[in-house]
């Protein structure tokens, strides 16, 4: 699987609600980050819309499967449209990949559109990759936005 195919694969897993398989793409030391502020560099002393290590990410997926997860029942239907894929650098066994995400979300008679600049840090794993870090910089992260109960 090349980088492009891998990113499409990740998007496909999310769009088909195969969340456990999606989680398996992440390394044990992975971080998944949706910053609150544009260009945010710090995740410990500045809030984030999501800032999960692998443990929290796993709990997030578990919550989505809980029979009384009101905001996630049913899960929103989504299309993750990944584009503008560019390799930024490759060193220490990690490939930094930039992409853009256009996401259409539908749930409870409401359709929302999201846009984001995305960066993946990928580690080669045999014929495929695993994700060591994902950063999703939403264009409206600083706006007054309704609750976020999806994964980007």
């Amino acid at each position, binding site marked *: 699987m090349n980088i492009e195919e891998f990113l499409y694969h990740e998007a496909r897993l999310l769009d088909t609600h195969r969340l456990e398989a999606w989680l398996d793409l992440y390394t044990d030391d992975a971080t998944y980050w949706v910053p609150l502020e544009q260009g945010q560099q710090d995740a410990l002393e500045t*809030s984030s*819309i999501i800032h999960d290590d692998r443990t929290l990410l796993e*709990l997030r997926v578990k*919550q989505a499967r*809980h029979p009384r997860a009101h905001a996630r029942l049913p899960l929103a239907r989504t299309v993750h449209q990944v584009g503008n894929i560019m390799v930024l650098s490759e060193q220490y066994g990690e490939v930094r990949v930039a992409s853009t995400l256009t996401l259409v979300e539908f749930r409870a008679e409401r359709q929302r559109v999201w846009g984001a600049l995305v960066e993946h840090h990928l580690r080669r794993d045999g014929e495929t990759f695993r994700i060591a870090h994902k950063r999703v910089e939403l264009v409206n992260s600083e*706006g007054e936005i309704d*609750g976020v109960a999806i994964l980007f």
Partner: protein
Amino acid sequence: MGAFERQTLAALVQPDRVHRSLYADPALFDLEMERLFGRAWLVLGHESQLKAPGDYFTARMGREPVIVVKKSPVEIAVLVNRCVHRGTTVCPEGRGNAERFVCPYHGWSYDRAGVLQAVPFADGYDREKLPRGLKVVPRVAAYRGFIFASLSPSGESLESFLGQAKASFDDFVDRAPGGELEVAGGVFRHAYNGNWKLMLENHLDGAHPAWVHASSVAVARAAPEPGRPGEEHYFDIAVRQMRQNGAPDSVWEGTGMRATPRGHGIMGDYHDDSRLVAGMGNPAFDEYRRALADRVGREEADRILGVTLWNTVIYPSCSFMSQFRQLRILQPLAVDRTAVHTYSFRMPQAPPSMFRDTVAFSNVVNGTGSWVLTDDLEVYERIQRGFASGAVEWAQIGRGFGRDAAEPDGLRGATGTSEVYIRAQMRAWLDYMAE
């Protein structure tokens, strides 16, 4: 507004039930903006957001866009953000520092006190008839560093308005060594399709977590056990709080639930997890305890840290957690649409790890992508859909009714899950609306 005479309004707010129109009628919402948000003291922010003269941030008072500005080294002004010429907002939303507020439309400019200083093509006007400047919000006051304003030129003092809720702000500030607090760590801005009251009613509701937060309680229980003191995981504080939401009914019944005549509500005596708030055994917390004791003495430090207040609601626009240094300000946008801004506070003289806990707590519990908040928002929206239906006219607020105990400045619920705080909010609502 002749349709809403006192009697009509009073009929909507009965001692143990409330009419759905308070949540769903746009005409009542318009009246609330005028009579309630146009009269009450509203929390706008904190003095740490305005350090130097000219520092400003924008806010909203009901529907009024305002600029909160440090007009001199010692004085704060609140100006209506609307050019007196053609109505433009003179200042974009956000914060910054300005010598003058210059309207982008025709260049009318105002100084930090809102006084009109320059008008291009001024010869075209009769100077005597030009307005003096931006409309100044008539009353501004601060309590322990928290900035309030009222659009009404007269009314009770801020301290009288706050009543016993002052103690919650005292708790907020007293916990900070040297009394120093600053807004830090970014501002969450979320919104929901529901009436503004729904948030205030929810924040003191000890009967909802077992149901609304069942999913986050369940996953928190499945999380790795919190680390030993000083070796906590990044997420422990959040896991502890989510587990706390699953406390048995007896814990919720045992909380202290008090409400003031102005509709403020105070939940106390809640926590049974001594490491969540008191940080027992944590080296950073021990350092913090020492920093506090160095300034106020050990006895006073112990007293301060022994206070067990949880959520406080300042009616009609604010809710805060003094122990976790989180403050939320709501802004009604429409009868069925509300925005909420969530602030975190740093104690500059406490160990940095304590602020990291505040940030982690905020992300997981109060943030826009939170595991906890998102379920609350889902329920607010479902309430709003229910209240849009006219098939059933009333909502119940009678839990514990008839057993409220009168106190010097308000009421105390017989148990922690008493809806006394909603009844107090409704009584305050009627007082403002029918005044």
